[in-house]
């Protein structure tokens, strides 16, 4: 997963491997420390809602997943330095497992393309779960 900041436009590039998928509704974004919502927030992203694949989940009904590489065009930003923090969650159909919510942080300056995530110190998963898991 990489992020770019070109012409004031923030975008996220995700390379989803065959046999894996990410839940569209489980993305959470923070831009420069501000919670800007999820991938389903229409003001946040130009992600076309017809993109992705609809899975008919026996518990949750129709759920949109990304099972191929995709790009999210996020909100425009005016600052030259931008930090994007995102949380995402997905599963591997080939391995028959699901991954816990995962956090990635990207630090970018204007014009940066395909910036990889910063290395993060190991942290408790508890902070990565807040909207979905609350105990």
């Amino acid at each position, binding site marked *: 997963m990489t992020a770019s900041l070109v012409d004031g436009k923030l975008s996220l590039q995700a390379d989803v491997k065959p046999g894996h998928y990410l839940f569209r509704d489980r993305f959470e974004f923070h831009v420069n420390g501000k919670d800007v919502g999820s991938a389903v927030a229409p003001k946040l992203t130009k992600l076309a809602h017809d993109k992705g694949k609809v899975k008919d989940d026996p*518990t949750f009904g129709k759920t949109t997943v990304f099972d191929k590489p995709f790009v999210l065009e996020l909100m425009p930003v005016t600052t030259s330095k931008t930090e994007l923090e995102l949380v995402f969650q997905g599963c591997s159909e080939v391995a028959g497992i699901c991954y*816990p919510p995962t956090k990635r942080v990207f630090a970018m300056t204007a014009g940066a393309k395909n910036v990889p995530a910063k290395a993060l110190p190991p942290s*408790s998963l508890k902070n990565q779960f807040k909207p979905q*898991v609350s*105990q």
Partner: protein
Amino acid sequence: MSEDVAADSGQPMTTGRRTFILATAAVAACGAGAWGGHWWLTRGAVKGDEAKLLTASFEALDGKMTPVSTWQGKTLIVNFWATWCGPCREEMPEFVKAQSEFAVKGLQFVGIAIDRRAPVERFTKELAINYPVLLGDAAWLEAVKTMGNPQGVLPFTLVISPKNEVMLRRVGKLKYSEIAAIFA
């Protein structure tokens, strides 16, 4: 294992043959381990976070704190799962069947849901889960990393004997047939 093979064959064992059998056994062990996760952790007395798990208490769906030690003395199958985990939900009907079938032989399933209460309640009702389901803190996904699940993924299942020995660790789905084999 190699001694058993030699005894069964009725043939004297040469050094070369013994080496071959040991090498084959080692490869088989590695293969079995790779299939099931951490082969070097496959069996043995509980320790570390596993021991902590067996003495921990979790909130049950009725709101009461329930210690896992409630089921001490049973063959305990602890299944970490979540409603947002498709493979977890897929294996649970087999757990329901196994619980019905082998309860008389001392099997006790305990589900630990790393999830919110509402979807867990809904799902356990829909599926008529016939074993206790407890609510686990997300921090348990950190703890399971030392139990043979280094990525902290779901589903993850531990089978623990009445003597508190780990009989099986499984990252990914556990089949009814594997459970049945334990009680065969």
